């Protein structure tokens, strides 16, 4: 079965075409600047040269038509006809309380995604455009939606509620939803597979640290707590997001600086984090470089980032009454040797012992970076959210057939 995986943003669309017989990627690519007269499509067929095309793509339906054209084109294509695509899987950011797992798209599912526009005003409408565009181009092909929040729906009430008047939860569904669920799900399972132990016996802390960053406490294979909250602003310090702060700072600053709601939102989401403290960059690579060149602000940014990450690991060890595996994943988690080293250096009280040599190795494979004596397994596992979407889509569509 061949499955097209789509991740639609408001002005971009990423895609991957999977052959599920061996889970190989036949082609992948990206459409950027949708809505403008010079949209860019970058198409990467496996084992062949990349193709870049610039043309006018005003909306998502045209974008998907363009992608299907490239996938079936004689020069750059990887399949003979569109009919070979048997299912489409979509990434959707917010599934609210409706979706604890992936679902086959029908009118009910669509109406629920629409009801969640309020909670994810930037992301869910874009996902919806992707779904509609796929429907328009491939009307009779089953579609599946995979939610970023679904994995965290297993959190207990005491973890997902905020200690504020409960009427706000009842009226507006104010609660913790978390994010990166697909990634936390994938790397925790991959960790269990790597260790050859049943996930039901493990207490895992997964650290998804990319541009956005979140931690999850995975106990017996289920998310029991996660650091992102109702929105992706809570939790760790990130590239441009503040992460945790005293909520009273918000009205205080709004008053002092005469800021509007939009301005303060933008400040916390786009002008904070590593960027605000370093004054240089939101990118961990540049921060590390700055630190190594003796820049005091970069060092402070790094120290705060590492400190906050370590605090969360400690608190999730408390959440699960122990931890036996720590997993690092995503851009920074997979690549920052120095961040992993600094974090692990101060986790000896948990029994963590890092093997510096193993930690220094760069690789795209799942690997152990803790020593043989370490009481806690520390792993680096490259995440693969698209594969999870393809697998879920495959599973649900197979179920549909039988």
């Amino acid at each position, binding site marked *: 079965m061949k499955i097209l995986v789509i991740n639609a943003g408001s002005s971009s669309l990423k895609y991957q075409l999977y052959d599920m017989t061996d889970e190989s990627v036949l082609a992948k690519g990206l459409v950027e600047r949708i*809505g403008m007269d010079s949209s860019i499509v970058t198409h990467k067929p496996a084992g062949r040269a990349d193709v870049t095309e610039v043309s006018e793509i*005003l909306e998502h339906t045209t974008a998907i038509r363009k992608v299907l054209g490239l996938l079936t084109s004689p020069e750059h294509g990887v399949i003979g006809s569109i009919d070979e695509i048997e299912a489409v899987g979509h990434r959707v950011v917010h599934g609210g309380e409706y979706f604890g797992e992936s679902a086959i798209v029908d009118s009910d599912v669509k109406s629920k995604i629409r009801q969640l526009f309020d909670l994810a005003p930037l992301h869910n409408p874009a996902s919806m455009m992707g779904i509609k565009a796929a429907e328009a181009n491939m009307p009779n092909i089953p579609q599946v939606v995979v939610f970023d929040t679904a994995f965290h729906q297993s959190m207990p009430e005491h973890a997902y509620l905020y200690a504020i008047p409960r009427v706000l939860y009842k009226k507006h569904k104010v609660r913790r939803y978390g994010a990166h669920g697909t990634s936390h799900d994938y790397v925790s399972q991959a960790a269990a597979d790597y260790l050859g132990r049943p996930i039901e016996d493990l207490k895992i802390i997964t650290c998804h640290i990319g541009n956005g960053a979140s931690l999850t406490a995975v106990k017996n294979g289920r998310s029991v707590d996660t650091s992102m909250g109702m929105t992706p602003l809570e939790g760790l310090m990130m590239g441009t997001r503040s992460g945790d702060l005293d909520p009273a700072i918000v009205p205080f600053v709004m008053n002092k*600086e005469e*800021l*509007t709601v*939009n*301005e303060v939102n*933008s400040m916390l989401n*786009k*002008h904070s984090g590593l960027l605000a403290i370093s004054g240089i960059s939101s990118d961990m690579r540049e921060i590390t470089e700055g630190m190594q060149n003796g820049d005091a602000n970069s060092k402070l940014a790094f120290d705060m980032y590492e400190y906050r990450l370590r605090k969360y690991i400690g608190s999730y060890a408390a959440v699960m009454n122990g931890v036996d595996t720590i997993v690092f994943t995503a851009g920074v988690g997979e690549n920052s040797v120095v961040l992993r080293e600094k974090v692990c250096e101060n986790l000896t009280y948990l029994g963590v012992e890092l093997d510096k040599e193993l930690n220094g190795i760069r690789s795209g494979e799942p690997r152990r970076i803790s020593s043989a004596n370490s009481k806690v397994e520390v792993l680096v596992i490259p995440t693969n959210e698209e594969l999870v979407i393809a697998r879920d889509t495959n599973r649900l569509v197979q179920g549909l057939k039988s």
Partner: protein
Amino acid sequence: MYFKKIGVIGGGTMGQGIAEMLATRGLDVLLVEKTPEKLDYSYSMIELSLDKQLEKWAITQAEKKLILGRIHKVVHLAELGTCDMVIETISEDLDAKRVVFSQLDQVCPSHIILASNTSSLSLTELASSTMYPERVIGMHFIHPVSKVDLVEIIRGLKTSDTTFTETKRFVEEVVHKKGIMVYESPGFVSSRMICLMINEALHILQEGVASPEDIDDAMRIGYQFQYGPLEMADRFGLDSVLAALERMFREFGELKYRPSIVLKKMVRAGHLGVKTGEGFFKYDKDGDRV
């Protein structure tokens, strides 16, 4: 109708504000001024406004670049032929506006909506200078455009239902502001009410009932206005307030619209408010009260 490219004629305060707001919403803007120098000035003012927003963390450097990239400078109306809508924002001079509309009539396909940002002139009269008066409508934005989420949509006598509903859709779904429907009448709703309040504040001042600060505090704190009436007048420009009052006085003929003597004196003295640094209060270069 698909709204992607919008023409904005006039690069004054309102033209700048509208162009910037549209570009922020992701639309392409063709900004028209009479000369390249005037265009450059308007463009630099938009840049300044974006810099101020950057300072307040409202946007990022990258967003500023994107927004400016969507604003294109144009000196000939003839280049507006590809626009999906045109908004005219030149000074409140009926004859000048009529010239612009009759030119647009030649340039833009007959289904393209031609809107005027006039705050007091007759839409019906403006439309009469075109061959397709049914596509002419009023779209009155309020300064500062990026912050005030209200647009008065004014129907002239011949404005068609389609023109109105499409304009309303544009205002509410594309630029995300509230659009209210107003029939043609001097000052519509917003200018008529606010100018009367300002004029009354001036009478109170003139009679020595209260100081400028106290008059403003009364309305600002007592009735939750963001600015009191006198500071509001300073921000609109005292010359604009005077012109609006005079027009309404002429049209309605009622004494309550007669502009206060204080206002006339201030304008004659060249104290026009924020733009000259002095009105009822004093302001710095950034328009903040000193």
